[in-house]
């Protein structure tokens, strides 16, 4: 903790640092962990009153639209906007050769230029600060060349209505030169493939993570009883969130106001200011509700739709009117999941299930989220690991996180473990337990860490497996592959996978707590809402920390310029970071409150007081009490008259950083919690349909602050996760490079009746580094689920289909029926 000779800034920084120690609760939980709490955002959302960016309208507002390339790769040879300009209702047209837009680029890769490069340098992974992160370079906001079908290109318009804007785009007369393109990453590496980036001699993209090696795999293979080799493929899927992309911008003199559908609004503002060369204090960002994100809006730089923020701002300046820029549904298919990959595996294992070596070669298209080996490092005792991962440019939109950048890792992890178990004829839960550990070390090292840092010595994996097995009836139902035909004629299959829990080490936030002079509490801090219900949890935490009730606390997080920004709701780090921010702020506020109360009791010191149920009482004589309301009644600036005088407000703020991403193991913070997932399927061998009849998830969430929220994430993760491996797939036409299923009928995700029951079982072991031992759970299930369909189908029919999604045609083919 902070020592007293620190400066103000140093103290804040010191207090905000993350700790390796277990966060043992010091309060009694009244609101925390309670069921049946009314969600903060519930009524607004259910009644349709919640406002999303797409719902926003301002007086005099214009509608902005941009042209999307009809070709996979093409250059504009000639463009005539005359007819569009003449269309009544068209207010402004921006051409690619307009001086105001020409040369304006979005970063092609990550956050700000060099940001990741700096992080990588700091962590010693690379020597130089890299510009960006091995992706396509700066992408023009509006260029004359398209890199993929559906790319914003050539011309944008602002008009009185969306219909007029659309009509205007249709009236633009253009000649294109179509250029050769390539869709498949392995094709793109062949010598005769067209080179897609200018000034480059290969489609291979730079990435500092091309080789990761631990131990010596050759040695590991020698020690193995069996060598298992296989290849797997994963096709693209994407977020396909509920609300279509849009932004609303208005200039007010030199100040600019924007309504932004952005998961990380502060980053968005920062980048926008940089792109537009505007001082940040001239930009006001409103962050209305968001209809999903799942990472779609997680990266303000990489995403082509960010160009629309710039276009909208330029149009608004030109026309002097607010401009709402819109994408329609088919245009929102502007990216892919970062796990378009072909994977080559070689694994060595002993007969008893001990894995001695894992070697993976991954070939990614467009973007590598994660190389694919990290979970073996973070999560197992396997001593020899090697991963070669390359990223290849293809004629597709930029890929990105899709409810977790860990997809390649979980894909490789599940397939390796389940292939090994199948090859050895072992129960996969046994194989998991045999190899659990971290950083090539076994679980005794985890136990040591736990005891050194005050964590309970619970075996999370064993507990997760036990609970999951019981729920699904594993011991009674588990069977050898292809052996169980159900009375309905279908083949029964079941599978299991596991991983560490998403106890992640990043996230930074700040917030303030203000006790209003009626004794209610406002949380001050901006945050985008993507549906993970953080606000309810924050209010629960603040209520318990202050000794108040949930109903007394409120948060109004829609406007950025409050001075405080909570960690954005992503990376499964929201609650773990912000829970600590709020807990710290609440404790500070409580300290102030008790100091003020002590003055009013006159004869007690603050340390002698405590709060409970909105009451401040003397600990040694609980009958002596005052309500919080009484104590703070004057603690705000009031009007200065009639003998009233004000007391200083009770307001406290805190900052917390939950760690620096990429430094997990370096700082010695292993993940202690685990998760297990079980699935049951029925395969119709006459149609190839894989029907999911049951999903059982067991997540160690450390501490469930809001149980329904935890369950919601696990339910949602199951639907999204299973869908990704059964029906969700982006399908391009090989001849033209056009994405064929740009709508929600042909891009198929699950409906309410598609899968059988989903169990959401959570354990509360206190093994997390979050507040009260909590662990994030937002992404875990969705990321674990997809690969699990592979072993489940294998268990049903006795054939591996390592080609995702597993559609009926592939199943029939495996069965020799197609």
């Amino acid at each position, binding site marked *: 903790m902070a020592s007293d000779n620190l400066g103000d800034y140093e103290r804040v920084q010191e207090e905000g640092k993350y700790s390796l120690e277990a966060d043992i609760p010091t309060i009694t939980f009244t609101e925390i962990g309670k069921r049946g709490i009314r969600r903060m955002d519930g009524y607004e959302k259910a009644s349709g009153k*919640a406002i999303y960016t797409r719902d926003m309208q301002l007086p005099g507002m214009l509608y902005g639209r941009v042209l999307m390339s009809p070709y996979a790769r093409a250059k504009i040879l000639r463009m005539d906007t005359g007819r569009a300009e003449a269309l009544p209702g068209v207010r402004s047209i921006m051409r690619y050769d307009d001086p105001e837009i020409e040369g304006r680029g979005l970063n092609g890769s990550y956050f700000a230029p060099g940001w990741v490069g700096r992080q990588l340098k700091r962590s010693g992974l690379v020597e130089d600060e890299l510009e960006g992160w091995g992706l396509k370079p700066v992408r023009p906001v509006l260029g004359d060349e398209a890199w993929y079908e559906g790319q914003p290109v050539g011309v944008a318009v602002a008009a009185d209505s969306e219909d007029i804007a659309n009509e205007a785009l249709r009236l633009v007369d253009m000649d294109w030169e179509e250029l050769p393109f390539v869709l498949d990453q392995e094709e793109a590496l062949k010598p005769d493939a067209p080179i897609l980036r200018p000034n480059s001699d290969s489609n291979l993209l730079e990435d500092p993570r091309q080789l990761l090696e631990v131990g010596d795999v050759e040695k590991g293979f020698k020690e193995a009883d069996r060598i298992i080799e296989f290849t797997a493929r994963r096709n693209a899927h994407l977020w396909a969130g*509920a609300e279509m992309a849009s932004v609303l911008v208005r200039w007010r003199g030199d100040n600019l106001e924007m309504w932004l559908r952005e998961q990380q609004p502060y980053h968005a503002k920062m980048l926008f200011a940089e792109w537009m060369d505007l001082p940040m204090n001239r930009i006001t960002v409103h962050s209305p509700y968001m209809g999903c994100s799942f990472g779609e809006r997680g990266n303000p730089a990489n995403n082509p739709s960010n160009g629309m923020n710039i276009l909208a701002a330029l149009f608004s300046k030109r026309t002097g009117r607010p401009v709402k820029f819109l994408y329609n549904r088919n245009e929102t298919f502007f990216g892919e999941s970062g796990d378009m990959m072909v994977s080559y595996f070689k694994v060595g294992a002993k007969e008893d299930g001990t894995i001695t070596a894992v070697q993976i070669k991954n070939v990614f298209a467009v973007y590598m989220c994660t190389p694919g080996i990290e979970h073996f490092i973070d999560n197992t005792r396997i001593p020899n690991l090697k991963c070669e991962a390359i990223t290849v440019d293809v004629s597709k939109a930029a890929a990105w996180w899709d409810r977790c950048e860990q997809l390649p890792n979980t894909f490789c992890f599940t397939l390796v473990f389940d292939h090994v178990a199948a090859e050895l004829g072992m129960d996969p839960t046994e194989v998991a337990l045999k190899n659990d550990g971290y950083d090539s070390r076994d679980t005794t090292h985890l136990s040591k860490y736990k005891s050194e840092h005050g964590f309970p010595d619970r075996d999370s994996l064993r507990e997760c497996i036990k609970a999951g097995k019981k729920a699904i009836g594993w011991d009674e139902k588990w069977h050898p592959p292809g052996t169980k035909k159900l009375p309905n004629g279908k083949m029964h299959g079941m599978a299991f996978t596991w991983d560490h829990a998403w106890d992640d080490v990043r996230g930074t936030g700040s917030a303030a707590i203000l006790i209003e002079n009626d004794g209610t509490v406002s949380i001050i801090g901006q945050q985008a809402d993507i549906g993970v219900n953080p606000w309810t949890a924050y209010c629960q935490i603040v209520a318990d920390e202050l000794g108040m009730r949930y109903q007394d606390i409120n948060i109004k997080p829609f406007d950025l310029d409050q001075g405080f920004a909570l960690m954005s709701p992503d990376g499964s780090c929201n609650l773990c970071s912000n829970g600590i921010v709020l807990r710290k702020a609440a404790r500070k506020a409580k300290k102030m409150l008790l100091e003020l109360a002590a003055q009013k009791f006159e004869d007690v010191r603050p340390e002698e007081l405590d709060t409970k149920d909105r009451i401040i009482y003397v600990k040694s004589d609980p009958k002596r009490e005052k309500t919080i309301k009484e104590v703070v009644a004057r603690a705000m600036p009031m009007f200065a008259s009639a003998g009233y005088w004000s007391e200083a407000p009770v307001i406290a703020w805190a900052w917390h950083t939950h760690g620096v991403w990429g430094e997990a193991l370096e700082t010695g913070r292993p993940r202690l919690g685990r998760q297990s997932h079980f699935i049951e399927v029925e395969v119709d061998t006459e149609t190839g349909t894989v029907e999911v009849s049951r999903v059982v998830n067991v997540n160690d969430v450390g501490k469930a602050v809001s149980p329904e929220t935890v369950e919601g994430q696990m339910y949602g993760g199951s639907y999204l996760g299973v869908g990704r491996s059964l029906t969700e797939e982006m399908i391009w036409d090989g001849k033209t490079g056009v994405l064929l299923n740009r709508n*929600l009928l042909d891009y198929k995700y699950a409906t309410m009746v598609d899968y059988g029951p989903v169990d959401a079982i959570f354990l509360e072991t206190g093994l997390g580094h979050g507040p009260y031992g909590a662990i994030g759970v937002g992404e875990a299930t969705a990321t674990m689920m997809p690969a699990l369909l592979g072993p489940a189908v294998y268990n049903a029919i006795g054939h591996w289909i390592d080609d995702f999604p597993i559609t009926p045609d592939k199943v029939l083919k495996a069965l020799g029926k197609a």
Partner: protein
Amino acid sequence: MKEAMSKFLCPYCSTTFGVFEELKAHAISDHKTESVPAPEGLIRLTVNREVHEIQVEPQWTLNYLIHDRLGLTSPKMFCDRGACGSCTVILDGRPILSCMTLAIECDGTTIETAEGIAKSNHPLLDSYVKHHTMQCGYCTPGFITTSKAFLDRNPNPTEEEIREALSGNLCRCGTYPQHPKAVLEAAKNLREG
């Protein structure tokens, strides 16, 4: 409608005439006692128990009318092609998709949106909030309207029937398992008054 403009269209029955005099004669003889019809596109509809008389364009969808013109933000635009249920409103008792309905064809209809259902203190609202039957919330009003129309017809449903009734509503956040719980509770509260 270039052709129609170059001819003379009877405002009562849309028959066209080449010469104005003919139209005049026709109108006098065939439509003598009828009152002059309202201008094309003037519709009257009841939304959440309030009557609206409004001039619409033929290409306006009901969603545009309700959401953009009347300012009721509950019917959300999600797929815009009839494939998600998010823009559902109740039209004369039927849960229908406002994005695939022309406003001009809704003359004389009665419409309910989630705002209206909320205003009438329907127990669905409370049970949805209590059971956390939402995440991002964008699709939630569509579930509310669909559930309300369903409960109007089937006040004592089984879980299975609820799932069937809501099977046309997509939720990307995957809140599906929470809906039957909320709808069952609302049904119970409705029955018990």
